[in-house]
């Protein structure tokens, strides 16, 4: 018990820090946190790996020689005879329930560690899209995107992601505004439950970490898309915004695709 209690933390902190460094090297750290925190994360986890290795080299020796018995043999409850005769500062729970909890915590932590090792990092799925609703939150600098869209440069439009287009759609629903403005966006397919024949080409926008990921997307009108594209499959949609051919739809404008090309998940699946 004492050894488990003493060593569990250093194993967890060393291993998880090492895994975080692997995620960083493989470019998968952005599945979990915004890249602005990469430097801080890499520096701190490197410190943890070094301290963990130092711990296995010198700590057991230190532990044996550093701590004397507690001077105060005061009232510590029913386990009076168990721990304080060799108290070395390791925090051992003082009752059987506490010990069960401590072992359970170690087991759950170990399972989480194994999951981090064997399960590949994954981005969020449509479960989270449904939990958070598409385009409900702020879409960032809408005014900036709208001002750029008014300039009329084709290269500007082609650089827009679904976030900029969703922002511009929120700004104006005038079909004339979108004429001659090519759309070329990448995202994953989320069926629009309210409007048959329409799907959202969707990305998650992350401002801090995956916890705050907000789905943003633009509606694409493509009846029968379900037969061609599986939910959550990544696609590149090239097209133009037009008046919705489906008058019963809740979207006045939709993206009419010239082509929809199945594609790989981008290296950075989230927009930052």
């Amino acid at each position: 018990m004492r050894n488990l209690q003493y060593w569990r933390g250093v194993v967890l902190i060393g291993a998880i820090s090492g895994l975080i460094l692997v995620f960083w090297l493989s470019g998968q750290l952005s599945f979990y946190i915004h890249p602005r925190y990469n430097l801080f994360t890499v520096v701190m986890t490197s410190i943890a790996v070094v301290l963990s290795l130092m711990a296995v080299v010198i700590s057991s020796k230190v532990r044996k020689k550093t701590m004397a018995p507690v001077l105060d043999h005061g009232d510590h409850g029913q386990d009076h005879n168990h721990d304080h005769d060799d108290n070395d500062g390791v925090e051992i729970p003082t009752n059987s329930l506490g010990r069960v909890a401590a072992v359970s915590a170690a087991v759950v932590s170990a399972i989480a560690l194994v999951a981090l090792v064997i399960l590949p990092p994954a981005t969020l799925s449509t479960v989270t899209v449904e939990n958070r609703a598409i385009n409900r939150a702020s879409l960032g600098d809408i005014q900036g995107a709208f001002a750029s869209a008014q300039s009329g440069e084709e290269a500007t439009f082609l650089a827009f992601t679904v976030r900029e287009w969703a922002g511009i759609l929120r700004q104006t629903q005038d079909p004339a505004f979108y004429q001659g403005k090519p759309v070329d966006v990448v995202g994953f397919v989320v069926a629009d439950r309210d409007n048959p024949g329409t799907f959202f080409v969707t990305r998650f926008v992350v401002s801090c970490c995956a916890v705050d990921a907000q789905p943003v997307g633009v509606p694409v009108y493509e009846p029968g898309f379900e037969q061609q594209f599986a939910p959550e499959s990544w696609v590149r949609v090239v097209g133009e915004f037009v008046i919705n051919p489906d008058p019963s739809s809740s979207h006045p404008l939709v993206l009419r695709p010239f082509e929809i090309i199945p594609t790989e998940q981008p290296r950075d699946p989230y927009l930052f």
Partner: protein
Amino acid sequence: MQPARTSPLRPLLGLFLGLAGLGIILGGRVSTGDQTADALTDTSQDVLTLAFSVLIESLPFIILGITLSILVQIWLPDQLLFRILPKNAFGRRAVISMLGMFLPVCECGNVPLARGLVSKGYTVSDSMTFLLAAPILNPVTIITTHQAFGFDDGILVARLIGGFLIANLLGWLFSLHPQPMSLLTPAFEKSCAVVPSGIQPTKVQRSVDLFVRESSVLMPALIIGSLVAGLIQVGVSRDTLVQLGSDPLWSVVAMMILAFVISICANVDAFFILPFATTFLPGSIAAFLILGPIIDIKMLALLRTTYRTGTLIQISTVVVLMTAAIGTAVNLVA
């Protein structure tokens, strides 16, 4: 006490075992590479992704907190942290609330730091004042909150004043307790009573030893707190919470629930909540930014390593009531 007898090869064996263990774990990760996790349903996969996101976002701050705790406990002169404090109890707690300006750690990093302060001789109520105030009254949190909101709608000011008031109120309340050490868990109380023996290790050895002890206490709590936070986030509809955003009282309640559930650190939470600023009233944003650094799922798991359950219920009750009052007041004024 027996003097330690260790073979000179033992440190090398330890290093070999440590590197081998790390190699196996990292090799396992690399070998599964880019495979997809088809074995899991989308729901369980998202629970894990969200839980690991909280874990990976928080862990560097925990490491920073443990490192600063080591500096405070082992490398700083004993009297330094006492010399700067006024004798008057209210003045002392007010100054302690500001220590975060020099120790810029978020709430999870502050748990090891506050534990270190108690070990160093701070009273329980003084260390609690530090623990509650420092995540908000620290330069990183102030800069990120200012980057996100500027001085709009009094959100930043409400956050700073609210954090200060709540920390000092709770510090004062718990200073009235007749047996303050009984607020701590027996295990932590006991570890504070450990005294060094005649054979003194070097400062480096003590630092590494403290790193092992603190990570042993905090890591399981952090992991379990992150897993629970991931589970609840998939279970509680964010959409429902957001729909409450325009009501002066319900928006505050909704944001407090959100802060409790998402469990991210104070140094980064302003960016988290920024996308909600257009749909929620300013007082509810302030409530999110005040409550989150003090009480959330992950933080309760971490605090439970140090404080008894009863103490945490008392802290939570006061913090929730104070935050709701401040948030509603800002909503009515702004």
